[in-house]
């Protein structure tokens, strides 16, 4: 079998370059940054190539070391993987480009190690997505998390403590996952996802399988910070350096959501997850509270970054809700929202990074007149804010639309209500910021006449290397919104499990 080399390239290139970067750092520090961008560009390009190939030729298999599937580790890429792969690799490339200035400002002497960890983190995330083996998934999960702990700990004052808490929770999550892998291995004797899904249906009545499923869902829910298990997230992401938050926040939770979809609907059959035990129903109720509490807690925050973190929790709730609804529209919405949310959150956190880079405080009530200083950044902020609220041309609208449709299909009117209410709450949240930045006249500018004001347009933008990714992401939000019909019919439709 002539396998396409892309599935392995996408992992190996960032992994190896992570270690080469340390060597390069000894020789010449300036080379590290272009080297990292090149490595990530390779994996982004190969992920696009994979997407093309999967769309045209169907599912890709790559057997590591030429061992055949149930024994060897296999990388399987179907439309769902390919889709998530493109999201992860492209966004991490953009963030990598943007991170240069932030890193050099925030911790100049640790640049080399930062890039190394950054690449390891991306490797872990990509590996989680690409693999078709449950134990291999655990290993990649830990690579990603370990790099994440270290990256977060670089940050400001509270960071090491927050990171330690994250680590305790993350390890509990990972251990639960490992335990469930153990249970599955006991009853089936296999670790391959395709093999498992073939063997499991006969065993659905077994208590061990139920245990495995329960441990699995709780473990992944901790990793993706679903509401009652989100305690580690706000501190960890708030205190992390902004370059790290903009990588970790949009991607880690999304990859967790991907794992949830993968196991609930590929390894286990949808019927099992929905009918045999009411897991899906419980999940959607949990998501219900996640959305509500995420939004309400966000309302109480004065710090922009912290507010966004709570919005993120609510967004994770949306995805979990779509997964929990478990019908065609709901799941389409969830998968689409994985992409949209990754774009929006990456954009928003980059903007926070840009604002702090320019020396502004993160307190929302001190943003007065910000749009005059940083017009482009604030325009991008408005676009992504509109998208989070869910206003049509931006992409957030479409995934919410599908989620609402899914909730209507499931005849769960409360879920419809919570989706709409959370949109309103988001609107309040973001318009509070926009109002401060755009409409409230600055205290010292009140005396200046309006005509003169235009001449005094002080251009104090973030550096280009941060501005371009931000603008690209904002443009991405709009274009994905406009193209969402095509994306659904070309990719997501095939990504759904066959029984829908």
């Amino acid at each position, binding site marked *: 079998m002539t396998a396409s080399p892309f599935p392995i390239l996408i992992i190996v290139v960032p992994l190896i370059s992570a270690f080469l970067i340390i060597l390069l750092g000894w020789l010449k520090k300036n080379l590290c940054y272009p080297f990292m961008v090149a490595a990530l560009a390779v994996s982004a390009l190969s992920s696009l190539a994979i997407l093309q190939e999967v769309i045209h030729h169907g599912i890709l298999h790559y057997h590591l070391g030429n061992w055949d599937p149930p024994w060897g580790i296999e990388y399987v890429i179907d439309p769902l993987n390919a889709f998530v792969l493109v999201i992860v690799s492209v966004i991490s490339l953009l963030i990598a480009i943007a991170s240069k200035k932030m890193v050099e400002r925030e911790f100049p002497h640790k640049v080399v190690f930062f890039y190394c960890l950054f690449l390891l983190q991306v490797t872990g995330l990509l590996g989680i997505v690409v693999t078709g083996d449950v134990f291999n998934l655990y290993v990649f999960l830990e690579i990603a998390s370990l790099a994440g702990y270290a990256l977060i700990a670089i940050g400001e*004052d509270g960071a090491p403590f927050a990171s330690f808490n994250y680590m305790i929770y993350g390890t509990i999550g990972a251990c639960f996952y490992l335990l469930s892998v153990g249970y599955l291995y006991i009853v089936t004797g296999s670790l391959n996802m395709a093999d498992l899904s073939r063997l499991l249906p006969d065993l659905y009545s077994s208590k061990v399988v139920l245990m495995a499923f329960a441990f699995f869902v709780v473990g992944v829910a901790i990793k993706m910070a679903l509401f009652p298990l989100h305690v580690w997230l706000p501190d960890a992401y708030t205190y992390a350096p902004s370059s790290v938050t903009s990588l970790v926040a949009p991607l880690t939770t999304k990859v967790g959501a991907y794992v949830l979809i993968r196991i609930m609907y590929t390894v286990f059959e949808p019927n099992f997850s929905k009918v045999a035990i009411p897991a899906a129903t419980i999940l959607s109720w949990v998501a219900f509270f996640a959305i509500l509490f995420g939004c309400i807690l966000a309302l109480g925050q004065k710090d922009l970054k912290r507010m966004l973190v709570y919005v993120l929790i609510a967004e994770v709730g949306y995805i979990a809700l779509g997964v929990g609804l478990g019908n065609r529209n709901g799941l389409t919405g969830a998968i689409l929202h994985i992409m949209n949310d990754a774009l929006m959150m990456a954009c928003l956190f980059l903007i926070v990074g840009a604002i702090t880079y320019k020396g502004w405080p993160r307190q929302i009530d001190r943003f007065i007149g910000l749009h005059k200083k940083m017009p482009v950044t604030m325009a991008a902020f408005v676009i992504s804010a509109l998208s989070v609220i869910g206003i049509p041309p931006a992409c957030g609208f479409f995934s919410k639309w599908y989620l609402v449709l899914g909730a209507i299909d499931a005849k769960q009117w409360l879920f419809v209500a919570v989706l709409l209410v959370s949109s309103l709450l988001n609107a309040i949240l973001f318009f509070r910021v926009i109002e401060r930045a755009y409409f409230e006249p600055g205290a010292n500018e009140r005396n200046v006449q309006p005509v003169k004001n235009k001449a005094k347009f002080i251009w104090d933008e973030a550096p280009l290397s941060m501005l371009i990714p931000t603008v690209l992401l904002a443009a991405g939000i709009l274009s994905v919104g406009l193209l969402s019909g095509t994306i659904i019919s070309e990719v997501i439709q095939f990504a759904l499990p066959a029984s829908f």
Partner: protein
Amino acid sequence: MMIGFYAMIGKNNLVKKLIGMNIFQTSIILFFISTGSKKGATIPIVADGHGVVHRTIEAIQYMNPLPHVLMLTAIVVMVSTFGVALALLLMIYRRYQTLEEDEILALRRK
């Protein structure tokens, strides 16, 4: 397993939490290893396998080696987690001069 889990959640001292984490992980490793064992089986090495005409190997005579292999990887993961955790604790201690969770929280609030 429960001991470790309790220590991770209930203990106030961060080092104790870390030890709890270790107990938890070790217990999972033992759990995996136990799944591989069989009564009356020996280590999975075919003694005269090399160069001899291929014989049928009776799987019941050998323990399942796969969980051991998996746990080797898990041990590596565990050790590296432990290392990162210790480094973090060091950073925390340098900053706050204490490792009790409530004292750190009190310091942070100031």
